[in-house]
């Protein structure tokens, strides 16, 4: 690692001020950032730790909307249980030690193309709250490791409207425990949403064809015969683009079955 200063503000206002410094970067759970720093792929002057800011932690259920502070750990979301599909997803990220450090805000802001949380946010139609605005999940995830966040802007909370039914299924890459393909399906008052992670070169995306089919008939059979082009799919030593495109269909069916 290159050398940097590490500061631990206790209020959001102080954190935002510290992030205004040149080359300052936020540090949440660090489960991705620390390995990145060790490989010298990042060279911040200052890391602004968000772990000491109480106002960024905790889970509130406000009239059917679950509001989760950005610095809330995966383990805390897994224990909560008021949105079962989300808690199930959080409880299967990484391993127990990673879940005790990694946070929802960090995962969403990093937008790894194989991460689980972006699928939950996009699949649930969540709202991402930052220090100066609210962004709908449809507009937040803009590409591979890219989001709508501006320089110096951080995620402060994620608000999930709790759907009628939902489930997440991931086909796990057993060494990394990231999704080779992961699908989050939700049956909401405004229709079905299907979000796919792990598959596309462009990061998490909605599979609109499947959504339309499931709108009329929320059962695994509705997905039969639907296919996705392999063009934009990720190809690596774990699976070809064609394999991933095929898996999306299979995992979507399993997710619908799991949602019941």
């Amino acid at each position, binding site marked *: *690692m*290159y*050398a*940097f*200063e*590490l500061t*631990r503000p206790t209020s959001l206002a102080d954190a935002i001020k510290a992030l205004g410094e040149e080359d300052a970067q936020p*540090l949440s759970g*660090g*489960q991705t950032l*620390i*390995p990145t*720093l*060790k490989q010298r792929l990042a060279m911040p002057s*200052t*890391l602004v*730790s968000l*772990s000491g800011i109480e106002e960024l932690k905790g889970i509130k259920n406000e009239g059917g909307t679950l509001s989760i502070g950005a610095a809330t750990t995966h*383990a805390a979301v897994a224990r909560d249980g008021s949105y079962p599909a989300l808690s199930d997803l959080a409880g299967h990220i*990484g*391993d*127990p*030690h*990673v879940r*005790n*450090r990694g946070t929802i805000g960090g995962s969403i802001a990093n937008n790894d193309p194989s991460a689980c949380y972006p699928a939950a946010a996009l699949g649930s139609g969540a709202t991402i709250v930052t220090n100066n605005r609210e962004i709908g999940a449809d507009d937040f995830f803009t590409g591979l490791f890219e989001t709508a966040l501006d320089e110096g802007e951080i995620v402060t909370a994620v608000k999930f409207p709790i759907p009628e039914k939902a489930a997440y299924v991931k086909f796990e890459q057993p060494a990394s*425990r990231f999704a080779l393909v992961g699908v989050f399906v939700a049956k909401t008052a405004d229709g079905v949403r299907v979000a796919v992670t792990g598959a596309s070169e462009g990061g998490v995306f909605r599979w609109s064809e499947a959504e339309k089919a499931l709108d009329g008939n929320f059962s695994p059979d509705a997905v039969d015969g639907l296919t996705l082009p392999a063009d934009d799919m990720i190809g690596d030593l774990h699976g070809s683009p064609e394999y991933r495109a095929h898996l999306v269909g299979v995992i979507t069916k399993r997710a619908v079955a799991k949602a019941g």
Partner: protein
Amino acid sequence: MTNVTMTINGRSVSGTVEGRTLLSSFIREQAGLTGTHVGCDTAQCGACTLHVNGESVKSCNMFALEADGAEVTTIEGMANDDGSLSTIQQAFQDHHGLQCGFCTPGMVMTAAALLKENPTPTEEEVRGYLSGNLCRCTGYHNIVKAIMAASGQDVSRIAAE
């Protein structure tokens, strides 16, 4: 350089660290507690697992400054007050849950976190909870067995009998 103070196994330990100093380095090099092993230094193997405020973490994937003011427990804090082995440690010995022993501190700390959360886990739950801890020697069977035994369950039919 910044001052950092934490309570390790009930003893207050202070030191001066850089922003990039890892908790695992602080524990081994400044607190002198070398029971916490560093196997991979890339957050894969879990040998460096310890508890911060009661929760298991990989200490090679956390900065020392992030533990400022925290209660830390390492493998050196696991034995009973009279120095005899704790139930989990004794079970690892009784069931041959280690060979070279390199992964063992992390395994014991992980087992302790699991049994606190889930006092009578199934074999599948034990294996799932160990997903972040690698062992190159045992093939895991006897580790699983030791943890099940430490939870007070009958292990006569489990794994490598």
